[in-house]
């Protein structure tokens, strides 16, 4: 930074001198002016060649990208590529989480007689399908070769159909099941007639989706990767066999087709994936034409990727927790470091039917006895925020710390002690007699957090909590079954930016952390509160935004304080270093909008 500043000052001084000279030269005579005209012409011809393509090098994290097929994707790296290659009807702004136009220029909603909501999307008609031909991006032609294949409403319907078709066994199809009319039955094989699903192709430019009930998040879900067009002609073959059917391998390099601001050009499994600018993407106000020509993603472990960043081979990288102190102390690296929020929540859940923690006072005491700020400052060190409730601020419908500074649960050792004492007095026990177990999945990071919190509980409450860890898949089976431990760790990240995706999809009856069997709680938090569940449904369909936040605030208060079903611990952040010549945004949902990035000459 200091060096750059020195160079910059030197440049400023130099330019001053030059201007001074320039000011002086005209007096010397005419030839200079002639020379100037010549100079103007030459750079015009030479500049593009001198610049070359803009190449950005990033890392995905260790391991292969599981798939590029929007119908079956479920992880962040797959979705990152899909977000660049296929655009949904709507689009989520990566920084504000606002719903903005994607392939649909606009949409209108009407409420049907049966209470369902039909949204009519008016689609762009100027977006061609493209493919990488080994040398450059080219448009895909129709069978007779006369015209470009354009993205149509039919491509959207085909994409939704593939996602819901049980044959493809999509792990995320259930999100449609929640909201889209007939989607659950079609996905579960109750019917094999796709026309029973609320998807209607009016014409090439008009798509109608019918949702079970009106809700603020319907347009968000419509734009998710589960509803993106897919090239039927590549998957199933077309033009009387002239276009070969690629089946499940259609996402492999050479076969892959897409239409977004970037398309995939090379994918060396387990090693790297390259996307290139699609010059045929028309560009919209929210999704501009890409400025960068090539983006290489290597698949490296975080620590290895950071070393590669320091060696100058990557332009941006996550900072591993172990390197954070060093990065902050380094004058160059600290200037390149940005801590940005991520839409995830880390929490401890309580099995509300297990001994001891079945009493709400114990749960509340344990939650309040966690000194979240101290945990962040001394253990995590990554700029996380203490979580007072579950649905992370920044999501639509979620309360914010500015408006609700005292909502939810706060760290308060004295109040915690009082709550626990009231329980102990009533049951005639002492704190050290309480038999409590905290379980987490095996990982050094979770271990350190658990040990810190174990110590806080011992210091603030005098309880001795046992720590147990299990390997990930074993752990998941444990905490979703009858033997759920008293306290267990989990985290949650967004699928679509709405509070409904957090609180309802986790703690509603038979939701992710509150599984039910035969209508009764059978795992996780073992929570059964019909009023709370009804409240979740009401908040989901509330159309007034301010009112909605109020409803969610009340529900959060029930979840984390009144009933203390969970102890929210922190809201995620991430630490990223980026070279100073990269112009970028920071996506809060786990994906980056690479079409907005740029590389300055350096």
């Amino acid at each position: 930074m200091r060096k750059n500043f020195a160079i910059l000052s030197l440049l400023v001084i130099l330019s001053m001198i030059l201007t001074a000279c320039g000011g002086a030269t005209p007096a010397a005579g005419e030839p200079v002016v002639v020379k100037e005209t010549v100079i103007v012409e030459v750079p015009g011809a030479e500049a593009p060649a001198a610049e070359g393509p803009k190449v950005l090098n990033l890392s995905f994290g260790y391991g292969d990208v599981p798939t590029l097929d929007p119908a079956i994707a479920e992880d962040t790296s797959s979705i990152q590529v899909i977000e660049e290659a296929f655009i949904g009807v709507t689009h989520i702004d990566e920084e504000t989480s606002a719903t903005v136009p994607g392939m649909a220029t606009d949409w209108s909603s009407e409420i049907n007689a049966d209470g369902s909501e039909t949204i009519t999307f008016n689609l762009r008609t100027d977006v061609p399908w493209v493919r990488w031909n080994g040398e450059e991006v080219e448009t895909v032609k129709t069978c007779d070769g006369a015209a470009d294949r354009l993205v149509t409403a039919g491509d959207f319907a085909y994409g939704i159909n593939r996602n819901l078709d049980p044959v493809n066994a999509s792990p995320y199809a259930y999100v449609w099941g929640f909201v889209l009319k007939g989607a659950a039955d079609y996905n579960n094989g109750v019917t094999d007639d796709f026309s029973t699903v609320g998807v209607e192709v009016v014409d090439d430019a008009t798509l109608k989706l019918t949702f079970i009930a009106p809700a603020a998040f319907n347009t968000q879900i419509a734009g998710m990767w589960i509803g993106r067009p897919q090239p039927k002609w590549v998957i199933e073959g077309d033009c009387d066999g002239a276009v070969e059917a690629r089946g499940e391998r259609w996402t492999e390099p050479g076969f892959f087709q897409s239409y977004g601001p970037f398309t995939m050009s090379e994918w060396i499994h387990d090693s790297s994936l390259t996307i290139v600018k699609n010059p045929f993407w028309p560009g919209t106000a929210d999704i501009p034409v890409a400025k960068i020509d090539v983006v290489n993603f290597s698949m490296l472990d975080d620590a290895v990727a950071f070393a590669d960043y320091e060696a100058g081979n990557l332009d941006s990288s996550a900072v591993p927790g172990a390197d954070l102190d060093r990065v902050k102390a380094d004058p160059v690296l600290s200037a390149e470091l940005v801590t940005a929020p991520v839409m995830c929540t880390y929490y401890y859940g309580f099995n509300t039917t297990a001994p001891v923690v079945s009493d709400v006072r114990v749960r509340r005491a344990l939650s309040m006895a966690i000194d979240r700020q101290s945990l962040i400052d001394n253990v995590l060190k990554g700029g996380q925020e203490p979580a007072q409730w579950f649905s992370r601020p920044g999501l639509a419908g979620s309360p914010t710390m500015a408006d609700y500074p005292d909502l939810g649960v706060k760290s308060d050792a004295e109040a915690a002690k009082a709550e626990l004492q009231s329980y102990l007095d009533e049951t005639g026990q002492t704190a050290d007699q309480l038999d409590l177990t905290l379980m987490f999945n095996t990982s050094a990071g979770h271990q350190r957090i658990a040990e810190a919190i174990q110590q806080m509980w011992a210091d603030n409450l005098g309880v001795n909590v046992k720590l147990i860890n299990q390997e990930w898949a074993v752990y998941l089976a444990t905490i979703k079954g009858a033997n759920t431990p008293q306290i267990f760790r989990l985290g949650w990240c967004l699928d679509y930016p709405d509070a409904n995706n957090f609180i309802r999809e986790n703690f509603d009856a038979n939701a992710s952390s509150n599984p039910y069997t035969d209508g009764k709680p059978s795992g996780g938090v073992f929570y059964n509160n019909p009023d709370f569940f009804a409240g979740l449904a009401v908040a989901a369909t509330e159309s007034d935004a301010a009112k909605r936040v109020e409803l969610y605030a009340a529900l959060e208060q029930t979840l984390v304080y009144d009933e203390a079903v969970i102890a929210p611990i922190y809201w995620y952040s991430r630490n990223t270093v980026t070279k100073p010549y990269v112009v970028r945004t920071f996506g809060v949902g786990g994906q980056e909008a690479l079409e907005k990035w740029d590389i300055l000459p350096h």
Partner: protein
Amino acid sequence: MGRYIVRRLFYMMVVILVVSIITFGLMHAIPGGPFSREKALPEETIKILNERYHLDEPLWKQYVSYAYAVLIPHITTIPPSTSLQDDFLVNAQIGSVWFRWMNFGPSFKSRSRTVNDIFRDNLPISAQLGTMALIIAIAIGLPLGVLAALKQNTLWDYFGMGISILGVSVPVIVLGPIFVWVFGVALKWFPPTGWGAKPPYLFGFLPSKLGWDFFKYAIMPSVALGLGSSAVIARLTRASLLQTIREDYIRTARAKGLQERVIIMRHALKNSMIPVVTILGPLFAALVTGTFVTELMFGIPGMGKYFVTSITNRDYPVIMGTILLYAVFLVVANLIVDITYAFLDPRIRYD
């Protein structure tokens, strides 16, 4: 000898069958399944996924279908399709008939790939790395061990064994990041991550172009990986050679007045190679099928990680594939070792 090899091949098949049954049983016995997620999938979705991969069938039936798909050659007139369920390692066309063999199934995690794709794309890289590491291990370990034995209790001995103790006690997990930092980040002699060869490979496993572009990536990880094994080889060579040069026949050779060089090279070294060759078999199998830590440290897209991640992901076909691959390499390497014995020590006879 011929009969011996045939008999051994038969035993090998039995061993691999037993390994496959135990692995199949164990991986289904551990709790959790391939579709366990932090964001739990709805029951209906899991049911659909289980049906797709036939995980809803009884275990014995799943095993029989697996063994059938892998072992029994399929002779058919239907050409290969693009389905991931229909990917065979061996595809030979004779006229209009297809001879197709070894279908290890699709990966549950990478949903556009099969286990055979992993063998085709990742195994060659691990094999290249492993072979180079083994060459380095032998090239360093063998001379170091011989030197230490011949100059026992001299500075040479202490130096050689000191290095080998260092090699054993500083594992790749320590050496790797040091190499990356010193030679990759600070000195910039080599790229810190990556591999210099990509598909298609020569004969299915050799890099198509050998040159600086290949070796600049390969040198650091091969040395880091080979150093630890070289230490083992050096110690074994030293111990074995020390024992051999005290044998009566060496004394006889000396008494006959043979040159010291001939005694060591032709008589002592050849006979002392038996323990070294014995460990080279399993070492070869372990290095060539993939080394998780080394590949992780240097960002090499090899097979190693699949041995670990397939288990955490409960990716059943990949677990079976990797374990069987390792088992085959191991038993074949051991067979070659046993055949080598007969060459090293003519007293060993198998018939």
